């Protein structure tokens, strides 16, 4: 990746992180950990030019689709969409509030730029399978991205979807697996060990690319490899740090679903600005 682009994406990622902290503090509830872990991936998706999307025409037919199957991580999606210009940034302050366009989990009918309503874990990947099938049927060359959590992979429906995507040779579908190793009750390996996770996707017939989910070069190379893959879907297993970028949140399951206080917010933003 060129230095200039990398700098730009790093700035985008930082802006998204600051927005995540800010909106969650304002909301008083929500999920910072799994939003922060996916920030670099979302910065790459929305600001590298890889997605064929247009914020002025959120519903354009041939757009690429992004399905955030782990819907509780929506602050990262909302922040990216606001940065991209889908809606005024002032909306971020209304997250989770009554009447807001930003629901506690993504609602495709309320938020411009959201391609699928998600929140009940395990369903988003199946929806992405339907989208990829629909695109193939119409011979549209659009790409479909889904983002699932490693904890979410405990849902059986993920593997039903994985089977179907391979069966229908959906090479227009790429899934990011946010492998941050934590879920609400603790470490994923203790709650329900899904290892070897990458091997599982491989066994289901997917092209599997394992990366450091915070390394923009690796994200770019993985997406390019996924795009070049033919006749099978691609899974990018992104090793990430839950709460990435905010030192006191990193690697702690307590920050899965807890909003920062004003004081914690100040500390977090100071940390992000360091």
């Amino acid at each position, binding site marked *: 990746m060129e230095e200039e682009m990398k700098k730009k994406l790093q700035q985008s990622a930082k802006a998204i992180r600051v927005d995540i902290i800010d909106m969650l503090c304002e909301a008083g509830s929500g999920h910072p950990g799994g939003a922060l872990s996916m920030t670099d991936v979302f910065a790459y998706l929305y600001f590298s030019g890889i997605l064929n999307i247009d914020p002025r025409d959120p519903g354009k037919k041939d757009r690429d689709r992004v399905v955030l199957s782990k819907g509780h991580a929506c602050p990262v999606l909302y922040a990216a969409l606001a940065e991209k210009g889908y809606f005024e940034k002032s909306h971020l302050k209304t997250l989770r509030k009554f009447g807001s366009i930003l629901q506690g989990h993504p609602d495709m009918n309320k938020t411009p730029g959201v391609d699928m309503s998600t929140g*009940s874990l395990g*369903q988003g990947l*199946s929806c992405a399978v339907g989208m990829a*099938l629909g695109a193939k049927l119409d011979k549209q060359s659009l790409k479909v991205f889904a983002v699932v959590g490693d904890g979410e992979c405990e849902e059986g429906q993920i593997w039903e979807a994985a*089977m179907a995507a391979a069966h229908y040779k959906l090479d227009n579908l790429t899934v990011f697996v946010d492998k941050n190793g934590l879920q609400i009750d603790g470490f994923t390996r203790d709650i329900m060990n899904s290892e070897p996770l990458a091997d599982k996707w491989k066994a289901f017939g997917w092209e599997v690319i394992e990366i450091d989910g915070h390394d923009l070069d690796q994200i770019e190379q993985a997406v390019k490899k996924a795009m070049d893959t033919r006749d099978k879907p691609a899974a990018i297993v992104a090793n990430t740090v839950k709460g990435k970028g905010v030192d006191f949140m990193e690697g702690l399951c307590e920050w899965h679903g807890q909003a920062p206080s004003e004081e914690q917010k100040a500390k977090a933003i100071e940390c992000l600005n360091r």
Partner: protein
Amino acid sequence: MIPDNIKNILSTEDKKIATRAAYGKKLAELGEENEDIVVLDCDLSKSTKTNIFGSKFPHRFFNFGIAESNMMSAAAGLATMGKIPFASTFGVFASKRAADQVSISVAYPRLNVKICATHTGITVGEDGATHQAIEDVAIMRSIPNIKVLSPADATETEKVLEQVLNIDGPCYVRLCRGSAPVIFSDEYQFELGKGVKLFEGDAATIVAAGFTTHIAMDAARKLEQEGIEVDLINMASIKPIDQQLLMDSARKTGLVITVEDHNVIGGLGSAVCEVLSQGQPARVIRLGVQDKFGASGTPQELIEAYGFDADSIVKTVKENIG
């Protein structure tokens, strides 16, 4: 007495067709007219009859294997791409196995998915309780945005499907395994939110839908022979329901008997009670499965054992009128 306006739309042919068979045939016809239609199934296409569409339009037919949850969410994804997915499986799997997917992937975003469930009710028969959907109407009715339709015969199935195509949003169409007499001629027009009165009388109101309509017609005929004339309403549109027709009839008769191949909790009978309790209080007796699981048996044995055969309806009317 059969109302005059109904006489000319009642079928004169003496034939029996399962509504699932009518579904399969009609779906293949509609697929010709509308290229956006895609059909999804879960390894039951020979039973749901979607295989007719599948062999005609193989590229628009997707078998998802034995994975109903995935099929339902994938249908939602296809709908976001402008397709009109008909997602088919047995009633038990469409409603119970995939309830969360129907609710969150399909209904919440109000996507244009048509869930067409076959093998509903205890009249599925010999397979027994595990395969008899007696909760599906209750589940689907309580999910916002979904329309619930239960056609009585082959003709009404075809008419319902034509209507369903014109509705932009999720629909649940309840179909049956077993053959039922053809009630309507091709002149019949189904209207969303409307019921039709097949018999007219003052003694009582009988409300039926789906597989129970022809049973209730037998009962109405038997009652008529004994000089008891009833209103018989076929309510294929369970949600939205025809409130006016129900209230007008209840006001006239004061006694309403609902007949359904479903648990009496949450189904047609409950829907009728909800309308009448608010608008036209009347005594309602709900015939159907009395909050029990089903059992193996022939459909006729089960209908009799669970108390919604024609003789049970006749008896209930006679015991409860003036």
